[in-house]
């Protein structure tokens, strides 16, 4: 919201307060404004804790809950909350993970935004609510009106599954649907906008405008900067340093980005969104394959630009989606492709191993510049777990980036963002924004022990954790599990961990290098080996963190932890799983997996 549009009508402020605010802000630089915004947010948070805010009148509150791993869900929910507030509605915005399930039967208006994780699983912060609704404890909800927006990726077999579950369960409990379930694919923006308008219209008859709307309980965190996914900050890359040795079969980079005087603040555990441009060589290859020059004018949404520009900066080239394959199959009339799209699992496998350029080369079809652009999805930014703490690096932000590379018929194929960052030179510009992840936070009590499990680039946030704990002088113990293929080549940040060990700040480091011996050894094996001690740490209140691969690693580690609880805690399999669920509910078991 721009200041000039600010009025008493659309804000909780009086007209006099609005005028004073306008006067003050006119004198402030953007950096000062950002600082004040943070100050006020923190102040408000404090006030929240101390005073019971005056309850809104009897008008029902619009409860908006989100559950998502990447922050997209949070973004949609936040935007919906703002719209609803601007209409004068009382709003309660919360992560599902922070929501008290017992309150559900008091709700009358519930809007849910939820993503689906991996093979149809609920994201971490949604698990508890998801389970609760399916359990016998779930109350009848006949008083409730609701709508669900599901986020997903149609290339997965269980597309939007968690959203579907929520929708079905709420209906089964007698709740009334305000809208049909909205299933959004990776390019969700437009549908999300429509849904927001739709639900706000739908709740109108049910709500009276309240003059004293409740401030959303979104945390006073990170979001103190004016920069966002839609309005990213243009930063400079300071360093892109290879971390893997010269004989490694992988290329992992340590990337340092200068946030300069942007005022951007992040917390350890947050992610950084990276907007990138596609590789010019790749764009050339696409153009050549299509026999197009790149100078053709095309329309993307409401903007006019050259085809080359669209391919470089606006459209997704390195990640395929089923819609493209389907349409390209029709266009090219390639029998193999036509057969492929009949099989979802095969299509998904194919997508993981191919890019747009592979498809248009192997199955040529003639198309126009505009038609081609229309087939492509908009470019989406990539999120990287931040590998630094501002307590240590001040206005820098560090990332640990694995270059995604592959070879097809002698042609190198790269991941869009990772290649952009890996080949960056000093001073190169990159558009960034902070994506807060409040479900991956160090314990508030610095005396609490932490166990960090982060193989591969999953180690990134733990570098941030260690920097933070070191600067804070936190007295809790720190234990890191790390793994990668080869000790000599792939020990990310080896010398830094050695230094922390030497200083006594890192108490224990267990490593698993899978390819250095005949049997493959992974972090979960080390967890099993160290089971007794892990159990002891957990009994002493340690927090557990997992970061990295979601498909295999996080599951294997989870199983290993269940085994540890069974063996060393003498629990049954069910009780061991329940024990971890309790840890998760208590925010002592947090994951940042992808």
């Amino acid at each position, binding site marked *: 919201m721009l200041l000039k549009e600010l009025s008493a009508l659309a804000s909780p402020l009086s007209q006099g307060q609005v005028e004073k605010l306008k006067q003050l802000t006119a004198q402030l630089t953007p950096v000062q404004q950002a600082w004040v915004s943070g100050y006020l947010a923190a102040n408000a948070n404090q006030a929240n804790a101390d005073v019971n805010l005056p309850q809104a009148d009897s008008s029902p509150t619009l409860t908006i809950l989100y559950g998502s791993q990447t922050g997209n869900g949070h973004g949609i929910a936040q935007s919906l909350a703002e719209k609803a507030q601007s209409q004068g509605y009382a709003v309660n915005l919360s992560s599902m993970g922070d929501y008290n399930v017992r309150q559900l039967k008091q709700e009358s208006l519930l809007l849910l935004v939820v993503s689906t994780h991996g093979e149809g699983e609920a994201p971490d912060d949604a698990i508890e609510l998801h389970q609760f609704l399916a359990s016998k404890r779930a109350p009848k909800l006949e008083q409730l009106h609701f709508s669900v927006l599901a986020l997903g990726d149609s290339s997965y077999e269980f597309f939007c599954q968690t959203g579907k579950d929520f929708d079905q369960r709420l209906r089964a409990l007698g709740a009334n649907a305000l809208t049909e379930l909205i299933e959004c694919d990776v390019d969700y923006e437009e549908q999300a906008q429509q849904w927001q308008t739709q639900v706000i219209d739908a709740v109108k008859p049910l709500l009276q405008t309240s003059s004293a709307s409740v401030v959303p309980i979104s945390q006073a965190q990170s979001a103190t900067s004016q920069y966002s996914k839609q309005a990213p900050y243009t930063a400079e890359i300071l360093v892109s*340093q290879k*971390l893997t040795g010269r004989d490694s079969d992988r290329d992992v980079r*340590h990337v340092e980005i200068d946030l300069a005087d942007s005022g951007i603040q992040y917390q350890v555990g947050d992610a950084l969104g990276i907007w990138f441009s596609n590789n010019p060589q790749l764009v050339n290859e696409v153009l050549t394959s299509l026999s197009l020059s790149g100078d053709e004018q095309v329309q993307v949404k409401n903007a006019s630009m050259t085809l080359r520009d669209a391919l470089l900066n606006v459209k997704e080239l390195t990640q395929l989606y089923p819609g493209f394959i389907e349409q390209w199959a029709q266009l090219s009339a390639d029998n193999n492709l036509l057969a492929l799209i009949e099989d979802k699992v095969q299509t998904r496998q194919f997508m993981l191993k191919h890019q747009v350029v592979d498809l248009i080369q192997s199955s040529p079809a003639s198309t126009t510049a505009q038609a081609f652009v229309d087939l492509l999805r908009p470019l989406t930014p990539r999120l990287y777990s931040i590998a630094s703490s501002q307590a240590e690096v001040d206005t820098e932000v560090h990332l640990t980036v694995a270059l995604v590379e592959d070879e097809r018929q002698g042609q190198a194929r790269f991941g869009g963002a990772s290649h952009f960052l890996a080949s960056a030179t000093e001073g190169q510009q990159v558009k960034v924004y902070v994506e807060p992840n409040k479900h991956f936070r160090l314990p508030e009590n610095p005396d609490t022990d932490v166990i960090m499990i982060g193989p591969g680039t999953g180690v990134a946030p733990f570098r941030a954790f260690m920097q933070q704990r070191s600067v804070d002088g936190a007295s809790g113990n720190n234990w890191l599990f790390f793994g990668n293929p080869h*000790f*000599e080549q792939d020990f990310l940040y*080896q*010398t830094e*961990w050695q230094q922390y060990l030497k200083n006594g700040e890192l108490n224990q480091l267990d*490593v698993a290098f899978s390819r250095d011996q005949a049997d493959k050894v992974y972090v979960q094996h080390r967890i099993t080996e160290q089971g007794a001690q892990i159990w002891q740490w957990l009994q002493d209140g340690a927090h557990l963190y997992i970061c990295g691969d979601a498909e295999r690693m996080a599951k294997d580690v989870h199983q290993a932890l269940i085994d540890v609880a069974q063996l060393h805690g003498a629990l049954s399999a069910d009780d061991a799983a329940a024990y971890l669920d309790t840890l998760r509910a208590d925010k002592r078991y947090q994951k940042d997996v992808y």
Partner: protein
Amino acid sequence: MSEQKLAVNEYLKTDSDFLRGTIKEGLATQVTGSFCEGDQQLIKFHGFYQQDDRDLRNERKAQKLEPLHSFMLRARVPGGVCTPQQWLDVDRISSTLTTSNSIRLTTRQTFQYHGIPKRNLKTLIQGLDQTALDSIAACGDVNRNVMCNPNPVQSQLHQQAYQVAKELSDHLLPHTHAYAEIWLDKDKLVDTQTREPVYGHTYLPRKFKMAVAVPPDNDVDVYTNDLGLIAIAQDGELVGFNLTAGGGMGSTHGDVETFPRLADNLGFIYTKDVIKFAEAIMKIQRDWGNRVNRRRARLKYTIVDNGFDKFKAEVESRAGVKFEPMREAVIGDRGDRYGWVEGIDGKWHLTLYIESGRIKDVEGKMLQTGLREIAKVHKGDFRMTSNQNMIIAGVDAADKDQIEGLARQHGFFGKVISQTRGHSIACVALPTCPLAMAEAERYFPDFIDHVDRLQQKHGIAEQAIVVRMTGCPNGCARPFAAEIGLVGKAPGRYNLYLGASFEGTRLNKMHKENIQEAEILSELDQLFEQYAQQRNAGETFGNFTVRTGIVKAVHDAAKDFHG
């Protein structure tokens, strides 16, 4: 003396519980590929050194990776003799447990593995154990691998001399059980102070080297050893040895208190008394050696500091036997006899030239594969020479063609080896040796190409000149006993030494300090020109440089090596 602070290593040895230290713990930690500083000294007694790829140090530092640590392990192979089966095992271990893809023959008649990751050490040592080899005391402040002339032409005499070398090696082996416990998972024995009857719990002040020469060959460079045994035969039977003591190459640049030295002649002893004398001399060194300054801790300094007569008297007193006067012995060539030689027992021996001792497969020179293929069919034994070469020994006349065919097929006879190249050696140096200041092995072949061209230019190519290059003054390739010695000072820079005798009976002396290739070659160009014009008949290059006053002869290293 008692109040003086001893060298750091002395406390390490004392506190090590007979060389155990915290090696076991160091092996268990997977966070680093290195051992802690104290253990880095102790592991030498177990036969290996910690090294890192110095070419990659800066690169890896930027990658936030520790140096690329690996270990160089030297086996203990008295006299350099091993069986074909042992060679096959040694070869297999190199391929499976090291990253260097090579086996390096050393100047002390053994082989080294380079590039052993810490995690492979135990498996590797167990692999050696299974083929009856070990690395106990191959490095460290103990009696190192005992050398013995390997050329079995005089088969019976050689066999007798070899037996003595083996007995010396066995008798003077440390008794500590640490090696068996740590590497071979043997149970810990109850400690007793008598476990090191010769060494005691502090072992020697410094390394101790022995060699057995069988005249007229002096390939073992007998005078460069702490203890030298020159075999004396009567009617083809070994009767005893001329004993020498106090040789050693190591010195420190810029420290004139340190110097290389050739051994003094002590006298003749009978074979039955060898162990007595060897033990007596080692014990004197144990008790009298300098434990304050490791740079001056070798036996040579003990003799210089105490005086030769006092030393000799103490040896006789401790051995309980007097020396007889030296017997006549001809000290001859230090090179190897390349190609086929027939022994007096009718067996044939093939000496293969191996450049810098590096057994490795490269295109056109599949040396590692070649030796493996030979080992599969060979019925005799393998003998590593102190010139870093390999002898396929004890071949029946009927099998000669097969062995030679395999050698040819794998590129052992690739190029003609000049006289000088055949007599010349270089140490390993960069990138793995932590002591190296300049290149040696990697640069030496090119350098010898230049020397060959200069010799041809001046028409002296038929004259063998002993050229030796090392990356530092510790002297692994015995550079101070070379007619042309090049000792590294800095990358691309060497000190040039001249004037040693061809036979290894006189040290060289520094001629030019800290010079680069162009200057070295222009200097040699001039010297070769003079030599070609002014040499006497049969006069070697080293003798020529002394006779004509290009350098002064070194007779007493303590006094005249420097200055």
